[in-house]
């Protein structure tokens, strides 16, 4: 079956008959999908009706689907770089990558580069005139070197592909010395071909559905079982406030220069705003400072409203209230969307004022719904309202449909500042700081300290029991009855009701959860990880 399929494919595929049929099928599907995708592109459909039926067939053969001529230029980022679809990831990919980075100093060229990469980079260098000349020179020298190394190590160049071929990496990736001096062992034709094939597969970024299902089919997560509990938990929150960490001097200088460059755009931005376009700023790095400077320099004389889209409990209503009540001095906000818009419109144009909305993160969590966006869009469409918004999330453009985009009438600006998102992420429960549990620990401490000694004793009982028993396969918590008897033993409570009263306090502070099991017993559980509890207990004992 596989052989038959291969015949219909390119010549190169004929060599790889040995492969599993499943893969070949996947590979074969891809070009077909791509064609279909082009065939159904809207412009094609647009043309067809004008032809009569008799000539349609001929027409289809004559003209391939029209392709955009000017949309994609040389200085664009390659789609395949961004959306490269890698169907198989292994545990060792990460390790390999690190080894590669550590073992080769970055200036020296590694012999494992493929010609495709070199070509790509060559074209990129030409296409970016912004590059400083000496960087170009360096690169050219590197490329010459790499070219020569390419010919020297031609045997190994295709044999060692760092990020694919799970079978290869499985055998040799574990030992770093083998990686570092990648010896040019002549391999058999079969393996080399395989690698070439994998390479071409990886650079397809029109995703075939099979790939997606392949990726999501496995139920088990193929990563190691390490947890962060291996680390000593330290209070990261204090240290995180310190911004300078990890930014080298050179970088901070360059970042400052980069940011200063954006100031030259301010005049132009104002002109664009005056023509009823709105601005959207994208690119990595906090754009708050740029917007602040813009506001400070250009908008001193006109009313502005700054909206922090990243603020976790922001509501559109508060925005509207600020405009209608605080700024325009009305008593209340009308309930209807169109009324709101018309009120703002008439009052602003009556007083001939231009209102500026500066929205930090228009893609913020509270603004990620259709209602908020259509409200903001209709506001931005007004003649006297000018919007300057920033986006950071990679899927932010999905927020807007045709109609909204047209109302917003954005012009897009690449304002990459590379500044840390200090304010923006200050609200977010960052993954690591949450994991490290500093926050939980401190809140636990605070509540604990305000308890009576008896209550503390009760809580300790639950903790100790949980720490002793949590490794049981189906740990369900301490039974209420047991807690009562234990507490009585220690003279913490004398009657059932008192214990109940204590427990409600715990439950109110979410220190304890009550579960009712199948057999009807009440079980108490502390919803905090045991490592944290252990730490907490140790700290308490120290005191």
């Amino acid at each position, binding site marked *: 079956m596989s052989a038959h399929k291969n015949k219909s494919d390119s010549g190169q595929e004929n060599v790889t008959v040995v492969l599993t049929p499943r893969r070949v099928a996947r590979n074969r599907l891809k070009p077909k999908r791509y064609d279909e995708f082009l065939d159904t592109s*809207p412009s094609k459909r647009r043309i067809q009706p004008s032809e009569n039926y008799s000539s349609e067939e001929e027409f289809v053969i004559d003209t391939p689907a029209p392709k955009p*001529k*000017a*949309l994609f230029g040389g200085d*664009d*980022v390659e789609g395949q770089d*961004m959306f490269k679809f890698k169907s198989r*990831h292994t545990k060792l990919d*990460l390790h390999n*990558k*690190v080894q*590669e*980075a550590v073992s080769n100093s970055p*200036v*020296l060229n590694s012999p494992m580069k493929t010609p495709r990469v070199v070509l790509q980079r060559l074209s990129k260098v030409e296409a970016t005139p*912004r590059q400083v000349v*000496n*960087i170009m020179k360096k*690169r050219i020298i590197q490329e010459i070197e*790499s070219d020569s190394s390419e010919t020297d190590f031609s045997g190994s160049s295709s044999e060692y592909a760092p990020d694919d071929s799970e079978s290869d990496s499985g055998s040799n990736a574990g030992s770093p010395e083998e990686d570092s001096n990648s010896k040019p062992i002549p391999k058999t034709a079969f393996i080399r071909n395989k690698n070439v094939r994998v390479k071409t597969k990886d650079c397809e970024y029109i995703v075939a559905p099979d790939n997606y299902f392949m990726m999501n089919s496995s139920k088990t997560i*193929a990563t190691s079982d390490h*947890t*962060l509990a291996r680390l000593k938990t330290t209070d*990261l929150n204090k240290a995180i406030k310190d*911004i300078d960490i*990890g930014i080298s001097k*050179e970088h*901070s200088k360059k*970042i400052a220069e980069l940011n200063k460059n954006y100031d030259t755009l301010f005049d*132009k931005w*104002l002109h664009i*705003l*005056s023509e009823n*376009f709105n601005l959207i700023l*994208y690119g990595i790095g906090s754009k708050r400072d740029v917007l*602040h400077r813009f506001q400070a320099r250009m908008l*001193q004389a*006109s009313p502005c409203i700054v909206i922090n889209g990243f*603020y976790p409990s922001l509501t559109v209503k508060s*925005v509207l209230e600020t405009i209608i009540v*605080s700024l*325009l001095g009305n008593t209340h906000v009308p309930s209807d*969307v*169109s009324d709101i818009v018309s009120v703002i419109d008439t009052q602003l144009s009556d007083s001939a004022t231009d209102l500026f909305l500066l929205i930090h993160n228009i893609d913020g969590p509270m603004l990620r719904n259709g209602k908020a966006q259509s409200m903001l869009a209709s506001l931005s469409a007004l003649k006297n309202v000018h919007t300057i918004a920033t986006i950071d*999330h990679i899927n932010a453009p999905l927020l807007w449909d*045709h109609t909204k985009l*047209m109302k917003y009438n954005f*012009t*897009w600006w*690449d304002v*990459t500042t*590379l500044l*840390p998102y*200090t304010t923006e*992420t200050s609200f*977010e429960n*960052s*993954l*690591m*700081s949450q994991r490290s549990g500093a926050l939980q620990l401190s809140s636990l401490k605070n509540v604990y300290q305000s308890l009576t000694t008896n209550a503390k004793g009760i809580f300790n009982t639950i903790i100790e029991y949980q720490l002793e028993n949590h490794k049981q396969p189906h740990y369900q918590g301490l039974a209420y009855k047991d807690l009562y008897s234990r507490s009585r033993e220690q003279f913490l409570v004398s009657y059932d009701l008192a214990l109940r009263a204590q427990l409600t306090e715990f439950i109110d502070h979410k220190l304890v959860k009550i579960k009712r099991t199948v057999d009807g017993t009440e079980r108490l559980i502390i919803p905090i990880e045991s490592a944290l509890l252990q730490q907490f207990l140790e700290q308490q004992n120290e005191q």
Partner: protein
Amino acid sequence: MISTNNLQDEEMDPSVSMSKGVFLFPNGFKKTHKSKKHKNKSVFDIYFGSEEWLITFRHNWNLFEEQLKNLHEKSYSVLLHDVVNYLKICHNDSEMNSIEGVIPSATLLTGVNQPDHVEQFMSLINLIREEVTPHVAMINSQDGSTVKHLVENAVWQLIRGVDLVESDEDICDDIVDTSRKLKKSTCTMKTLRNWYRSRYSNESPRKMRQRQSLIVIIPDFESFNCNTLQDFVMIISSYVSTLPIVLVFGVATSVSALHKSFPYQVSSKLLIKVFHSHPSHVYMNQVLENIFLTHTSPFHLSGKAFELLTDVFLFYDFSVTGFVQSIKYCMMEHYYGDNIKSLCCDRNKLDNAVMKLSADDLESIRQLTSFKPFLEVQDCLTTIALFKDNDFFKEVLIKELHKLHDYIYSFYVCVRLLSVFLKELPKNILGKTVREVYAKCATEHITSTEGFKECMQLLKFQSQAKLVDTIKNAHKVVSSALQMSSPVKPLRLTPMKNNLNNSSLNNELGEAFIKNIRLYLMMFLRQIEVASNEDTTETMNCESDEAYDNVHGNRYKLKEKLLKATRAEKLESKFEMIRSRFVSSMEEIFSKGLQPPHTQTFHEILFFTEVANVKKQIIGSPRGALHMALNNPVHYLKCCCCNLPSPDSLSDKLPDVSLAYKLHRECGKHINLYDWLQAFASVLNPDCDEENRSHDVNIQVRFTRAVAELQFLGFIKTSKRKTDHVMRLTW
């Protein structure tokens, strides 16, 4: 250094708060209505004042907008009149009223370019107000989320609509009062019925028959909630016996959308008549041909820019409004901050504009790249004079700009001419519409391309009848172009005559050239028409011969016949001779008239060429910028420490986010935070052993921040499936 600044900013920053997300900076704005009296300048005026380029830009853009409006009305008038006529009759027609509880409704198939429809529906409303009834309501999906809202809005607009129109007429006081007092929350169908009765019951029975209908327009059918609309239709159908309500649906996709969202019991209450509107590309072609691709337009797009904009239209949104906005943006970019662009104006104002230029402006005109080739052909003395003598330079400038305008005039006529010829040809070599031809002609020497030659070859095979038709069409194009320009003629010829030396008349483009073309066309038309008679008879004979031969053909005979045929064709008929002469003369005309704009002196002033500047602003690639900054930070930082041998490789010098990003790309769908941290630490700190390196607080903090930023950017999110794992959200 910056970081300390940042800290200070943060301390003083009034727009950061843990309890508030919106901050108002009134900046002297007062709620009093005083500002109405003393006119305060807007911010924009303060910054830009009244510079020449801005005035010219505003003037030109207003012209465009006016033209667009006119064109819009013209192009939609047929459709809208159809709809309006239907609306007029639908409630007076006895046949239609026969069935109980059926609502007459019109469905407009508008196409997917929804942003364009706003204007279309606005003009429909205006037309209805003028011709049918003052009671019109238009309800967008955002105002009709529930049946209550929908009904309230509809009723409110229907009742209030009268005020807007009849405010000048004297209406009974009590009616005004009721409508003034009317609150939205009290608007129900009952209110509407009572209001309608009180308004129209007094009238004479004769008038009762022609009672005003109530029209409810739902412009974006697909964005509504189906159930809401179903309920709405059912409610109305129960009132339709007393209230003459008509529904108008704007459907973007197809009629089937209507049938899909309405079950039988609902759709049986509707009497649907479907109206088709133009597909948007037809409208765009109209806009281009009538407004932007004409010699009267003061601003022109270079081939590349034009291609970009049409690509955005065809491949992204199909929206003409968006297209016009992109052109506007290009225009802004063209004019922005450059005083010499004030020359990019109407031809009549050219002399004035040149006179207003300052010495600096003239200097920057001399710097234009297209000025160099012009200098090279001048003799020494004039060259010096051009640089030294501003007045002389101005004179030359005026002359050259007039020449440029002449060129543009004949260029556009030739483009249209060519597209007329191409329309009839088989295949789609250079495109059929004016815009496609323009895009080709504006980028390169069209006459030297393969495609053009092929087209001319094909033209040589056209039949007489077709050719005559084409030439007639071409003649029409040329004469209409001549007509359009004739009123301007006396004005602009006077200054030119002074400067013209007669020897250059041969190379002269412009009106004379076009007149020449018209002459040619007339001549050939006559010749071909005359020649056609003999020719057709000949071919007729030939064909009958062949038909006879075909009956008993063997291979030898066939061969002989073919040989004969080849010989016979060498004898050109008179028509063929004329035809080939015609084609070659056309080729000559085109090669003269269709030189690309970038060959002309001072083309930078009238043509917008800097596509690269606008492309990023019009399209925008947020994802690309993110990837670029993370994968190859040098692109933005321009530092010398982060040069990577390949875009895939790592280095410890990279910014933390970038490093974390690159590492996470190596992982599958789930990422183990601990392993990720290990990898991160071992890149930064390769010498330490595995146990210790990750315990460094410094590294932990850096990693934490990088991870938080990646989460903020949407690359990862927390996962509950396994402890200390995050999920990758990209592939």
